[in-house]
């Protein structure tokens, strides 16, 4: 660590006091926020140096959840890595699955049938609704809302999880996408359930926004806090809603046009200030667009097979080569980089974790703000430690 542990209380006899003293400002206080802190969203640690309550230095420390996911991926077959991707960003297993499946499909040259592409879009947009609702809840919880918005968000998330459960058998560890398609073809009942959820979600968002979006305290807490300038955001590889809140029109659903996304009509909301409020609002507006995509996808879901006939489960060995596949996950660009040497296991299996890379700018966002702001800035960056630490 860059600075030894300091305390400006009288130290126990025999220990040394760090001589950071300035006659105008007094001593600096170094606080280790985390790894067990209520609002670090997992085992995340920020070593914060404070001048009063103003942050003058912030060093993120992580790795507490590190399990070397990439090494695991290199030691198991291509298929066996699929359930592990569920556990990266455990809120968004469906999009993680998709990103991995996409990379493998690029590597092996598999084509996905139209019905499966639509299904993937439906599931990805449900995941986006789920993730953004949770994020809004967590962010407001970090602002000190005593759990109310979080519980409302979880109430709705529960409905989506029930859908995931009845389709894939598991609520969060879905393990649903396969190379060249999807695992299960949904029943009409399930699609009706999605339709019902889609129809009701707008009303929930309205109520949720009435609760706090126009709240003066919330606006005062978030507007102008943690501004991220567009050039820095681009240079730092920040992706997803955080990048769009800074006003950069970059949504892989539009840019790459992967899957069936080019066939849908939706808009990409952009923020002008790049502050915490924009990051929150961009997500709320994205949820409204997701509802539009879901409506269109449900109305136009084609019939047909859900698996590429060339795909095989057992003995899958792509030819030597490499591929990088990325999609617009709810947290940003989630990508998988695979190198194959022709064996059943990937030679190199790399995850591009959006929340890990989005953390690069955490210190820049927090400098000059207070401890209370650091908490909500971290909340608005939206990290999941399962993905950061891998």
């Amino acid at each position, binding site marked *: 660590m860059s600075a030894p542990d300091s305390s400006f209380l009288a130290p126990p006899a025999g220990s040394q006091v760090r001589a950071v003293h300035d006659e105008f400002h007094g001593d600096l206080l170094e*606080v280790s926020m985390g790894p067990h802190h209520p609002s670090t969203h997992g085992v995340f640690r920020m070593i914060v140096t404070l001048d009063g309550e103003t942050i003058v230095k912030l060093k993120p420390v992580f790795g507490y959840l590190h399990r070397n996911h990439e090494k695991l991926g290199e030691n198991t077959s291509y298929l066996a890595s699929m359930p592990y991707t569920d556990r990266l960003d455990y809120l968004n297993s469906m999009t993680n699955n998709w990103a991995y499946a996409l990379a493998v499909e690029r590597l092996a040259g598999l084509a996905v049938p139209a019905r499966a592409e639509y299904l993937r879009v439906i599931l990805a947009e449900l995941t986006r609704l789920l993730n953004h609702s949770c994020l809004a809840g967590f962010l407001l919880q970090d602002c000190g809302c005593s759990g109310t918005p979080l519980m409302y968000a979880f109430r709705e998330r529960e409905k989506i999880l029930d859908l995931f459960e009845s389709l894939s058998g598991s609520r969060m560890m879905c393990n649903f996408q396969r190379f060249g398609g999807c695992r299960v073809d949904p029943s009409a009942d399930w699609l009706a359930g999605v339709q019902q959820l889609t129809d009701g979600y707008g009303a929930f968002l309205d109520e949720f926004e009435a609760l706090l979006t126009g709240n003066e305290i919330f606006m*005062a*807490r978030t507007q102008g806090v943690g501004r991220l300038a567009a050039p820095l955001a681009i240079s730092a590889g920040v992706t997803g809603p955080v990048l769009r809140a800074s006003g950069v029109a970059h949504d892989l659903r539009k840019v790459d046009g992967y899957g069936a996304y080019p066939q849908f009509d939706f808009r*990409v909301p952009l923020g002008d200030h790049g502050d915490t409020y924009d990051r929150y609002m961009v997500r709320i507006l994205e949820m409204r667009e997701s509802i539009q995509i879901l409506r269109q996808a449900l109305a136009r879901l084609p019939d047909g097979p859900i698996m590429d006939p060339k795909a095989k489960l057992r003995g899958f060995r792509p030819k030597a080569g490499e591929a990088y596949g990325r999609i617009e996950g709810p947290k940003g660009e989630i990508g998988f980089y695979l190198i194959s040497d022709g064996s059943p296991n990937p030679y190199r299996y790399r995850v591009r974790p959006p929340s890990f890379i989005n953390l690069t700018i955490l210190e820049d966002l927090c400098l000059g703000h207070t401890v209370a702001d650091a908490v909500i800035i971290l909340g608005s960056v939206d990290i999941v430690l399962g993905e950061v630490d891998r």
Partner: protein
Amino acid sequence: MTPAAVPPDRWLELAPLQLRDWVTGFLPASLQWLATGLITIVAILAVFGLLFAYLTLAERKILGRIQNRPGPNRTGWFGLLQPFADGVKALTKEDVVPRQADPVLHYLAPVVLVALSLLGFAVIPFGRHLVAVELDAAVLYFFAAGAATELAIFMAGWASRNKYALLAAMRALAQLISYELPLLLAFVPVVMLAGTLSTTAIVAAQGGWTLGVLPHWFVLTPWGFAGFVIFMIAALAESNRSPFDLPEAESELIAGHLTEYSGFKYALFFMAEYFGMCALCGMAVTLFLGGWQAPCAALECIPSYAWFGAKLLTLLLGFIWIRATLPRLRMDQLTRLAWKFLVPLALINLGTAAFWSLTAGWTGGLQLVRWAVALALVAGPFVLLGRRLSRGVAPRVYRYASS
């Protein structure tokens, strides 16, 4: 006083006093004053101790309902034994004192806090005849006692030798001192109009009804309403309740000054917080909501302490409701709200009250003018100062990418 002397319709009203006198009647006359005092103390402790217990339960239940969940419902019927289960748990938990902490101060802080937060109850008239101590400067005494709790909170934060606790202690000091001022300024008009610092006299000044239904409570006047709102906001801040719960901001400072407390000491802090809340709400009832006065003449048959209790509970429910809804302020916003919004409003409210008191003689059409001017004096500064306070903060319109 013998039962025979009680008017038949007032016996319920006087029942607590008679009970007390009946008990003290067994003692020699020389000890009766002591017994009377002790019984009063025990009664306050028992009533507010129980209220604290069930308030925690009510808070958890209501918070739960607001958050679409049932709240505690496993311990006893509807969870009614939950507070006792919590109490037993707090008592049996290990009391952890950090090695670096100052053990004496660490121990004293919760004790002092509870003791100080109980002092306020002495001067609140809970009913027509129920006031522990009749003081001429009761209001002054109340706020002096209340202000001392800040010391105990700082003591806790300092003695813990924890960085979070220290930050919280600093926050607590800044916050409590900032809000002491609007709290005091908010009740000055009451004292002005009532012409007394005695709580019983203030309640008496709010007696009577217009047409038998419109009570003469101060909250129903423009200046009184403004004073009440300012008082309640400041009371929220003084009792460290959301949205002003910065000293124990869970998502920022873990538990603030309570970080290093566990077991029963933690429970004592909790208790003190609720006692402080009850005392402040009781004072608000006394100053603005007519104390134990019934809302209309026809309902006077219900004993006065029941009215006091009902009003107190309503205010407490309001606290819980606000806690369930609002996010927390930031430190600078908190102090800005106090100094740039509440204090000027409270000062202007003094002027409004003065105007109200000067125009007490106006009748007929002039009465309307009086109301209009007073309302304008309340609403105008609120809107103007509010606009100033929330400058740069507004809902935004968002654009969409062109492609």
